[in-house]
Every structure is written in structure tokens, then in C-alpha cells.
């Protein structure tokens, strides 16, 4: 019988119940995906069997590149010795990035995104399912390669890759050609791994004595990492033959499972996540949960009046408390079932969208977790949605006379919840505005992003580098091409290299003599003009990439000017300057003595999170110009791309024509922030939607409750506008109160968030005002419809209800 009444009641007020269902399902879907995303983020690298005992080994050394903390190690040739000396280290693996960006097979070149030369112990560290081959023996020999399934498909199609030979062509930095035999195929690394190589291979000959490699150590069970660190430190002291107190290298061991969220070093294998984002998302999920459940409870409280008569009469007829609880519980269950069904309808398409945008299938393998989230959410919402209703209901049916008092109390709870919801929503709106503006500011500060007419050929192969001048010359013949340049680091990259230098009239700091180095940035002569760098003083490079001894041209940025103790750009221009490259003898590379010819304003090559570092720009021919940049005439993108392709295929027929816009390169730099901004916008939208629906529902309830009052007022001469004002005023007052609560909280949170950035927007007052106006505006729109309907009703109709 209860079921029948519940169903009839639901049908009687379909809109209000729909509001409940939509609010709950939106929140459920949001919370589900946040939970799945958080699980994915928090489970990075934890699936490796020995994950708990694997550490990444890094070092900082003030003498080396200014003491910067790199995720990888320079010259880790001594690591096997380390294992022999320190018994707690049971194993090691080094991953050396494969340089060059392309692989050759059958005289065709294939782009690789990421690949490593590694020790044969790779599979003892990292779980990977082998499609073909035996993990124990597959990497035993030098030049053995295991390719990832997707890469194998790209290169070999349906052919069996086993036994085929893949070649790294003569690479950058004078690497020699090396060939590898494919011994196995492995499944692609899952999304929650901090690397995703196209292949791994044991080197042809030793590749670890010189060069960079990410280095991982396996420690014995129960080994204390601090002891191991001390052990490594002592080993380094002995090895370098220094006194312990003089040894200023610092040793770090970072847990494998901490890399994704807690590591922000230079030259990470891939851009990592950030634990702050995890907190932000977790809080967003919690807010969503609170808003949706409170909204549901609020509507329930508001609508309890509609069931009052039913419950009162039932009480007369002898129903017990339990039966009343059952009534509300049944109603809650119906809402819950509808919520579940709607959510189930929405989940698959949302998952598909996320999969398309972020290559993340969050549902895969997580069905049981999804089930738990659903169950917990439904239990929470049914019980917390019901609880606040029961008390006033019980007291209402107990005493017939005390209704007005309980009504007042209910109204108080209603409004309290409303203020709470709106405060959160306003805080969210403020956050979204601030985060979007800062992300936008950071993104637009990227070099060449604003003009949107620059593309990059990233990390081109050595043989292409050699032909840069020819490419430039050919490209500039086309009308569609504006300018062509090249640079060592791509836009958004890290300029980490530092050289010693000499400057006329500059006395190095005596105590720190050995640290006197400055950041360097080799580029093509048209670099400054292509990116519209603005000159504080001096001139741009002359039009060739060759300098003779004595006529070298150097341009410095503002930060470098200050670093060199000048405050006036005019004064430093013309001073004699020279960079000293230590590997002069081994490489034969010489940098000419010359002058500082110009000072440019600081430009943001890398993320705005970091301060701009002092940088010396110098032009080089055929060396270190790894990234090519082409600016085309605005509005001629398609034409320019076609022209570029023509030239490219003519000059480099065997290499893939692959480019990226600077926009997308900076998007990678701010991936976390952009994702955060997007997610927060979605949540804010959901939260606002739920709040507005709730407000709409409440307005409906209130106007229904005040039908008689409205009728009486109208009979006594109130105008429609006066009635609308009367009804709206109340709600707006509460939204304004919410605004007052939200502002300081949002200000505090956003101030903290902005601390992530070295360059940031200011928290202007208008952001807060805008959020307030938005909230009040949305509330007004929501409520006014109901108020208008109530106010324009014929007063006779209104009074007949009584």
C-alpha cells in the first residue's frame, strides 16, 4: 500500500521529484569519475610486484648545472659498483633515453615518442606482460629489443616483428648508427605508469658511463633508505677522493610510487601529476557530495509539508513510527533507483568522452569500485536525505497545534542549507574564474602562442639539422612563410645548460668562483625577430649564424643583466663577453669571443611556475639547433602547411613530416592546470545546476505555501511587481549572505593556489563581484519564474485553495 501511495505522490509532483533525481545523478556521475580518476592517479606504478622497495636515485651537485635537481643522473656508470658495495641494494636498472626521435626499418623512418636503452634487469623491476618472449632471458644479450604492441603495429602492421632489425640512425650529438634485434613484444604500459616506452633495448655497447639515465635501485626488504643514502654518499666521497665535509653532492632516493604525484624535478620522463590537484579534486568531490545530498534533504524538508496530512491521518488510523519511516524510506528508494538509472545512462558516454580526450578508460577494471561508489552514494543520500525530514514530521504529527513553530524551524534549516550550498557555489565560481584566468595568462605568455601562427618541428634528426640553412632558404621563397628559425629547446622546454663566462669589468664572486656560470641558449639569428622579443637596448643578431673570433654576438635577457649586476641595459651593451665550453677539447666546439649586442625583456620559454632564469642567447650554425620553428603569414595556415610539406618531402623524403603548433606544446606544459580548470568548470556547472534546481524547487514550495498570502495581498491591492519583489527578496538575501561567507574562503584558497606560479594575475576585486553578480543573477532568474507565476495567478484561484 505504501508503495502505491509513494508512486502516486511521485506522479503528482513529477517536476520536484525530477529535480531531486537529476541533482543526485549529476553529482553521482561527477563523484564516480573523480573517484576513478583519483584511484588512477594514486595507483601510479603501484602495480609492479616489488614497487614498495624500488627507489629512483638522483643527485644534486652545486658544481653541476647550478645544483639543479634532475630526475635523471649524469654518468651513472658506477651504479653496478654501488650494488657491490652496499648490500642493501639488491638490484639496479638504468634507462637511457633514446635520442634522435626516429627509428629506421627497411629504409623508412618512424617517429618514436619515448624509448629507452636499459640494463637487462628491466623486467625484474617493471611488470610488463610479454606477448612474445620470456622475461628471464629476453634481454640477456646486448642489442636485444622488446617493442610495445602499439609501436609494433605501427611499424610492422600484421607482420611478426620477432627477429627483425630496427636501427637508430646516426643521431644527435654525434651518436653512431646502432642496430637492435627484436626479441619480444610487450603489452603497452598502462596509463598509471610514469613512462610509456615504444620499445626498450639493451645497448649495443656500454652507454651508461657517459650520458644521462634515469636510475632505479631495488632495496632489500626492510632496508632503511636513509642508511642506503648515507652509504651512497660515503661511496661517492671515496670515489671522488674528497673529504666528507667538502662533498656537497646530495643523494636522494625517491620511492617509485611517489614519482607521479610528488616529483617535480627537471627532465622527468613524462609530465607528472601533482598532489595539489588530487586535493583540489577530492575537495571538489566532497563539495559535490555535500551539495547534492543537502539539496536532496532540502527539497525533502520543503516537501514534507505535502505528506503532512497523509502522515497525520495515518497516525489517527493507527500507523506506528516505523511505518512512517518506511513511507519515507520507500520514497527515498524510488528516488535512488531513478537516480541510479539516470546515472547508468550517463556514465558510458562520459567515459567515452574522457577516453577520447585523455586516453584514459577509467571504467576498465574498476566496475567493483564503481559499484561501491554507487552503493555508498545511494545509502548516504537516502539516509541523510530522510533524516532531517523525520524529526519535524514526528513533531508535526504529534501535536496538531505546534505546526507554526516546526514550520519556522524547518524554514531555518532550509535557508541554512541554501546559504551553505550557495557559499560553496560562489567559492567555486571564484576559483574557476581565477584558475582559468591564470591558466590563460600562463598559456598566452608562452612564446608565439598569442599570434597562433608558429609551428615547431620538434627534436629533428641530426641529418635534418645539418640542412637547416637549406630548409630555411627554400621555405622563405614561399609567400605564405613569414620567418624561419631554430633553437636548442622547444617552446615550453627547459633551458638547463650553463656555461662559465667572462665579462668585461665583471669580477666573479670569490667565494663562489667555481659556481660562476650562466644559462645558455643557442639559437638561429632570426629567433628574436620571429618571437617578437622586445629589446630594452642594443640590436638583434646580424643575418648569419657564423661568428668569427672577436666578433661573436650575444644577446642577454633582463634576468641575465641583473645577474651580471647591471640595472641599466644601455650600460651593458657593448661590453666584451665570452662563453667557455668545457668540452672544448673533446668536441672541437669553440665559441667565439665577442660582445653583448642587445638586452631583451624576459620571455617565458618554460612554465610560468618558474622564475625566468638568466639566459645568454647566441647563434650557432649546424649545432644544437634541434628544434625548427616556422612562422607563417596569419590567415594562411593551410597554404603554409602545404608549402612546408612540399619543401620537407623534397629535402627529407625518408623522414615523416611531423609538426606541432606552439599552442599544443604549451598545452603539454600546463596540462595539469588546463585539466584542473576544465574539471573545475564542469563541477562548478554541476554544483550551480544542482543549487539552482534546489532553489527552483524551494521557490516552488514556498510559493505554494504562500498561495493564500499572495491572494490576500493581491485582493488588498498589491501589484504583481510588488509580489515578485516580496518573494524574491527573501531568497536574494540568503544568496548575498552566502556571498559574504564565500569570499574570504575563496580568497584564501586561491591565494594559496597562485603561490604555484612565479608570475601570476592579481586577485582583483572584480572577480569576486562578478561571481557574486553571477550567483545572484542565476538565483534571481530561477526564483523569478516561480514568483511571477504565483504573482500573476488570479487571487480568487489562490484563495480557493484554503
Amino acid at each position, binding site marked *: *500500500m505504501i508503495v*502505491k*501511495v509513494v508512486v502516486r505522490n511521485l506522479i503528482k509532483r513529477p517536476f520536484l521529484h525530477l529535480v531531486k533525481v537529476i541533482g543526485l545523478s549529476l553529482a553521482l556521475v561527477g563523484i564516480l569519475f573523480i573517484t576513478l580518476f583519483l584511484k588512477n592517479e594514486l595507483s601510479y606504478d603501484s602495480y609492479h610486484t616489488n614497487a614498495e622497495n624500488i627507489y629512483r636515485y638522483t643527485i644534486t651537485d652545486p658544481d653541476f648545472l647550478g645544483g639543479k635537481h634532475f630526475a635523471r643522473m649524469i654518468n651513472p656508470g658506477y651504479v653496478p659498483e654501488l650494488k657491490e658495495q652496499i648490500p642493501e641494494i639488491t638490484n639496479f636498472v638504468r634507462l637511457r633515453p633514446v635520442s634522435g626521435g626516429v627509428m629506421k626499418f627497411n629504409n623508412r623512418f618512424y617517429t618514436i615518442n619515448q624509448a629507452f636503452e636499459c640494463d637487462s634487469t628491466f623486467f625484474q623491476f617493471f611488470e610488463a606482460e610479454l606477448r612474445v618472449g620470456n622475461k628471464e632471458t629476453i634481454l640477456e644479450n646486448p642489442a636485444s629489443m622488446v617493442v610495445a604492441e602499439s609501436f609494433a603495429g605501427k611499424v610492422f602492421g600484421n607482420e611478426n616483428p620477432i627477429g627483425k632489425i630496427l636501427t637508430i640512425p646516426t643521431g644527435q650529438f654525434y651518436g653512431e648508427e646502432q642496430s637492435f634485434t627484436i626479441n619480444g613484444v610487450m603489452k603497452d604500459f598502462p596509463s598509471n605508469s610514469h613512462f610509456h616506452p615504444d620499445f626498450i633495448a639493451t645497448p649495443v655497447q656500454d652507454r651508461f658511463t657517459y650520458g644521462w639515465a634515469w636510475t632505479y635501485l631495488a632495496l632489500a626488504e626492510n632496508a632503511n633508505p636513509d642508511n642506503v643514502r648515507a652509504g651512497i654518499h660515503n661511496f661517492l666521497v671515496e670515489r671522488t677522493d674528497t673529504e666528507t665535509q667538502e662533498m656537497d653532492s646530495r643523494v636522494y632516493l625517491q620511492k617509485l610510487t611517489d614519482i607521479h604525484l610528488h616529483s617535480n624535478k627537471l627532465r622527468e620522463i613524462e609530465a607528472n601529476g601533482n598532489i595539489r590537484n588530487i586535493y583540489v579534486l577530492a575537495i571538489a568531490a566532497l563539495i559535490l557530495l555535500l551539495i547534492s545530498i543537502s539539496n536532496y534533504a532540502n527539497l525533502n524538508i520543503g516537501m514534507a509539508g505535502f505528506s503532512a*496530512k497523509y502522515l*497525520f*491521518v*495515518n497516525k489517527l488510523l*493507527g500507523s*506506528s513510527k516505523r511505518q512512517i519511516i518506511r513511507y519515507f524510506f520507500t520514497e527515498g528508494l524510488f528516488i535512488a533507483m531513478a537516480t541510479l538509472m539516470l546515472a547508468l545512462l550517463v556514465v558510458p558516454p562520459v567515459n567515452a568522452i574522457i577516453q577520447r580526450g585523455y586516453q584514459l578508460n577509467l571504467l576498465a577494471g574498476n566496475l567493483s569500485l564503481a559499484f561501491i561508489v554507487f552503493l555508498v552514494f545511494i545509502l548516504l543520500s537516502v539516509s541523510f536525505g530522510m533524516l532531517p525530514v523525520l524529526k519535524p514530521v514526528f513533531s508535526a504529527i504529534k501535536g496538531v497545534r505546534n505546526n507554526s513553530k516546526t514550520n519556522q524551524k524547518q524554514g531555518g534549516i532550509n535557508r541554512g542549507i541554501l546559504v551553505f550550498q550557495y557559499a560553496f557555489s560562489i567559492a567555486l565560481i571564484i576559483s574557476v574564474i581565477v584558475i582559468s584566468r591564470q591558466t590563460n595568462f600562463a598559456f598566452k605568455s608562452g612564446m608565439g602562442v598569442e599570434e597562433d601562427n608558429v609551428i615547431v618541428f620538434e627534436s629533428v634528426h641530426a641529418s635534418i639539422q645539418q640542412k637547416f640553412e637549406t630548409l630555411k632558404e627554400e621555405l622563405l621563397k614561399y609567400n605564405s612563410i613569414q620567418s624561419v628559425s631554430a633553437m636548442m629547446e622547444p617552446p615550453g622546454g627547459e633551458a638547463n645548460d650553463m656555461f662559465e663566462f667572462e665579462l668585461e669589468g665583471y669580477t666573479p664572486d670569490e667565494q663562489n668562483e667555481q659556481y660562476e656560470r650562466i644559462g645558455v641558449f643557442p639559437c638561429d639569428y632570426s629567433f628574436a625577430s620571429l618571437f617578437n622579443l622586445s629589446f630594452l637596448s642594443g640590436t638583434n643578431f646580424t643575418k648569419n649564424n657564423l661568428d668569427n673570433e672577436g666578433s661573436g654576438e650575444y644577446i642577454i635577457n633582463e634576468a641575465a643583466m641583473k645577474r651580471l649586476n647591471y640595472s641599466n641595459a644601455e650600460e651593458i651593451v657593448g661590453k666584451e663577453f665570452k662563453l667557455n665550453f668545457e668540452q672544448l677539447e673533446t668536441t672541437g666546439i669553440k665559441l667565439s669571443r665577442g660582445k653583448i649586442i642587445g638586452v631583451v625583456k624576459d620571455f617565458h620559454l618554460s612554465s610560468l611556475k618558474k622564475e625566468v632564469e638568466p639566459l645568454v642567447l647566441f647563434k650557432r650554425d649546424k649545432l644544437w639547433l634541434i628544434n625548427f620553428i616556422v612562422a607563417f603569414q596569419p590567415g594562411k595556415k593551410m597554404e603554409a602547411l602545404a608549402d612546408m610539406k612540399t619543401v620537407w618531402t623534397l629535402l627529407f623524403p625518408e623522414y615523416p613530416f611531423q609538426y606541432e603548433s606552439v599552442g599544443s606544446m604549451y598545452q603539454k606544459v600546463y596540462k595539469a592546470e588546463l585539466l584542473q580548470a576544465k574539471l573545475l568548470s564542469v563541477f562548478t556547472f554541476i554544483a550551480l545546476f544542482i543549487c539552482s534546481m534546489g532553489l527552483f524547487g524551494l521557490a516552488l514550495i514556498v510559493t505554494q505555501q504562500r498561495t493564500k498570502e499572495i491572494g490576500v495581498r493581491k485582493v488588498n491591492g498589491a501589484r504583481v511587481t510588488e509580489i515578485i519583489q516580496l518573494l524574491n527578496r527573501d531568497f536574494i538575501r540568503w544568496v548575498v549572505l552566502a556571498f559574504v561567507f564565500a569570499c574570504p574562503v575563496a580568497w584564501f584558497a586561491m591565494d594559496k593556489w597562485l603561490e604555484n606560479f612565479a608570475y601570476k594575475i592579481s586577485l582583483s576585486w572584480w572577480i569576486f563581484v562578478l561571481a557574486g553578480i553571477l550567483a545572484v543573477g542565476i538565483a534571481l532568474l530561477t526564483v523569478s519564474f516561480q514568483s511571477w507565476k504565483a504573482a500573476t495567478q488570479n487571487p480568487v484561484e489562490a484563495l480557493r485553495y484554503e
Partner: protein
Amino acid sequence: MIQLKNIDKYYDAKFQRTFVLKGVNLDIEQGEFVSIMGPSGAGKSTLLNIIGFLDEPSQGEYLFLGDPANQLKEKQKVQYHRSHIGFIFQAFHLIDEMNVYENIETPLVYRGVKSKERKAMVADMLDRFNMVAKKDLFPSQLSGGQQQLVAIARAIVGSPKLLLADEPTGNLHSEQGEMIMKLLKKLNDEGMTIIQVTHSKENAQYGNRIITLKDGYVKEEN
């Protein structure tokens, strides 16, 4: 059956105590038909609510079938509502979401009467009140008189010992009112104790005893 001894009912405001009932003494025997009269605000409905366990006296003693009511637990009150007391109201108080049949059936459900028996009992009532054809209609589809008939059917379907009626004809025109009063009289003749609150002297005459309240006191009994 009902003994009220020195019953007070008051509400405390900040500096003032407002009495609704004061020192009410009343004995009602089984089988009586009592009419309570009095001007608005005299405390008639409050008295009826106290008798029906819908309200509690602030002071005084109330014995129902010899049991002191102020010691009754919630569960026992529910039991009395299920088996001993029926209510009818001026505003009918039918459940809008239920049709005629279901409205009459509800108290039987709470009493735990089996489905088959319930059917028979409800059918009996429908028959008695000539409402068989209307059993599937909802309250909003009935006239006031018909609604009150359903309310009475619902109140007496479980054969309660006591029927409490709060202005049962207040919302009806005189013809319908008369029909309802005659019905109540008939129920009383069959042995049901009835207490009604009414404004109408005429309707009060249907009872065999009239109690007049004024400002919370029992002014006269006859």
C-alpha cells in the same frame, strides 16, 4: 469508559500562561452519545484531541477504560488508535493519494487484518453506504457529503468502541448534514460510544447529553 479529572491544558508564553482548558471533570459511559458545544476558542477541539490521544493534558488525570492515559506509552496509544478509537473531522481528512476503497481499507491494514477479511469488511462498508460504484474514485472526485461518508466508513470499519467527531457536518449543506447525523445516531443505537463537537444546537440534539464549554470551563451539562 472515559474519566477526566481536573484536566488543565495551557500554553506558556513569555510572561503569561494561556489556559485552553481549566479544571475539566467529565465521565462518559459506554454507549453514550455526547455533544460538546461552545463558542469558538472554548476548547472543544482540544478536549476532543485529548480524549483521542492526539494531545496531552498539561495537568489532571485522564482514565481511558480504567487505564491512566498519561502513563500510556506511544505504542499503546497506537494500539488504541488501531482498535478502539475512530475519528471524523470537519475537513474529512481523507488521503488524497488513495481511492475510496483504499482509504477505507487503511486502518484494517494497520490492525493487521488479513487481506481476504479486509476485502469482505470494506465491501460491507461500501455496501452499507451505497458507495460500491465509487470505490475507485479519489477524494477529489467526490462531493463533500460523499467524502464525509467515506471518512465515517473508514472510522467505523474496524468497529471501534469510541467514535470522535469534530464538527462532522461543518463543511456540508444541511441535507447532507442531516444524513450524516442520522447515520451517527444509528451507530450509537447499535452500541458505539460517540463524542461530537458541534456548533449546531440542532445537531447537538442527536446526542443524549450536551456539554457546554466556555473559556475552558464546563459551563453546563444536561
